[in-house]
């Protein structure tokens, strides 16, 4: 009884603000409803879904999103783990170092996006200015297909490497020291110790961190909105950004809802598969 009283307010809020909207979106996804045009919603069956799944435009955004997610998450995992490893080997100033490295993660994506846009400006940006002083040419960071996507990945990596670092550091410092002692008696090589002791113990934590980052990266919107606006052309439009355009440029609410439902499905299915894989890993 007490449990119900304590839990239900929170659950009710979630039902009203998360589940109900989602169900509503699910209903709209089978219609051609438009939020501005008004008029009754016509039922179109799976029309929206088939249109989305067969659209070349959507495929292109999916590919862009995939490259972005894989690129960004891989880069920040390697970097984050590397930094954590280097910090864990220091005896002095670790607290200060960790704190400093964490700053980017705390900033609002708006601030991060605006500021990197300023720094990456081809003409007046500080990055090209420094490249120039080094005798290297100007790079068009935000206006070439390849570099624009790379810039997105770099900025996301800058902001979220600390996240991976933080979690990896927790794992690294929790490795029981007796394991290392035993290994050093065996005169095992550094690489061998790393591979057989450190990595297996940090790995599960790292995998969870990767999952969190991948989910976040998959739904990336604000950074694109501010940094490239999807350009040049549509080459940095992610799925989230495309949903936004469908929803707010043409106000095709029905299509946008179907698009959104599909994105949520992808997240849930992939997360479930991943978690199952993680559990198997734990058992094995």
């Amino acid at each position, binding site marked *: 009884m*007490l449990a119900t009283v*304590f839990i239900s307010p929170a659950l009710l809020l979630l039902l009203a*603000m998360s589940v109900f909207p989602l169900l*509503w*979106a699910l209903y709209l996804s089978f219609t051609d409803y438009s939020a501005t045009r008004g008029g009754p919603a016509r039922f179109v069956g799976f029309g929206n879904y088939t249109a989305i799944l067969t659209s070349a435009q959507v495929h292109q955004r999916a590919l862009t999103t995939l490259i972005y997610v894989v690129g960004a998450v891989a880069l920040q995992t390697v970097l984050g783990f590397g930094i954590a490893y*280097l910090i864990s080997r220091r005896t002095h100033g670790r607290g200060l170092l960790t704190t400093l490295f964490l*700053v980017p993660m705390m900033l*609002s994506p708006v601030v991060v996006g605006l500021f990197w846009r300023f720094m990456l400006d081809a003409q007046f940006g500080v990055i090209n200015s420094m490249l120039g002083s080094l005798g290297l040419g100007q790079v068009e960071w935000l206006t070439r297909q390849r570099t624009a996507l790379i810039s997105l990945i770099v900025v996301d990596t800058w902001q979220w490497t600390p996240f991976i670092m933080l979690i990896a550091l927790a794992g690294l410092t929790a490795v029981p020291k007796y394991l290392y002692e035993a290994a050093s008696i065996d005169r095992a090589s550094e690489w061998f110790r790393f591979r057989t002791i450190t990595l297996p113990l940090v790995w599960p934590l790292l995998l969870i961190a990767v999952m969190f980052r991948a989910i976040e990266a998959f739904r990336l919107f604000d950074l694109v909105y501010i940094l490239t606006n999807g350009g040049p052309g549509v080459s940095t439009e992610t799925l989230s950004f495309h*949903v936004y355009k469908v929803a707010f440029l043409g106000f095709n609410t029905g299509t946008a809802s179907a698009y959104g*439902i599909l994105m949520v499905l992808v997240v849930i299915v992939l997360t479930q598969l991943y978690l199952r894989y993680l559990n198997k890993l734990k058992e094995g």
Partner: protein
Amino acid sequence: MAVSVDEAVSTGPTRERTPPTRRLGGRGRSVLEIALLTVLAVVMLFPVLWMIETSIKENRDVYAVPAQFFGFSVTIDHFKDVFVAPGGGRSDLSVAFLNSAVVAGVSTVLATVLGVPAAWAYSRFAVKAKKDQLFFILSTRFMPPVVVVIPIFLMYRQVGLIDSKLGLILIYTAFNAPFTIWMMKGFVDEVPAEYEDAAMLDGYTRLQAFWRHTLPLLVPGIAATAVFALIFSWNEFVFAIFLTSSDSVRTAPPAIAGLIGGTTTDWGLVAAASVVFALPVLVFAYLVRKHLIAGVTLGAVRR
């Protein structure tokens, strides 16, 4: 046990590891590692430093090519502009900061008030399908905001919550509640249930036992959780830009984004506004540094 940064960075295990200096070339390697760390730290912090530097530069120097790192004339005008409108009086930005404080503050309090009792109940009682309920709660956090904003918008327009602080507060509360429940459940789990049992033997009701014995022990955890909820609401952009439009409701992130795209971009002002906007978050993050890991993973990683 939650792993705190302080523990994570404690010098315990490493000190007793094989001293690297004993190996051939150990010192060289150590120097290399320090150099590498320094380079990485500089790279990671440079944008922040550049932001601070830009905020105290005069606009003429902001665009200077090659970039001026030193020797520019310092001004605090941009910081003044953040708070004071050109004609005197409060600037739109300062109003936005105030709105952010109200929205973030109230939604955090609400999420805490709703989430903490729920977390306690999930921790203490045998709830039907507890695991499923908890996963469901967590999964509401995984939805892309751009997707959620569409039905929320339709819903809000029916109940008249568009372009209102209350609307933002409700959606932020809904986004923060799952986080609060998950993170607080961890903290409650750490408090032995025996305390409450003992209190109940003394004649207290379960509720009184929770209130008198468990809750005081949870205060640090609640504080940490609330700070993370606060940071989320403070930084949030997507809901803010699509659900609000008037100056009197708009929070700081869309207001700062609005500084570009006029006829001239005052990058000094953008930088100053960003610095002012980031400061509270950095202070708060410092205050909860012990719980950072749990905080950024919705409590999923604590150990």
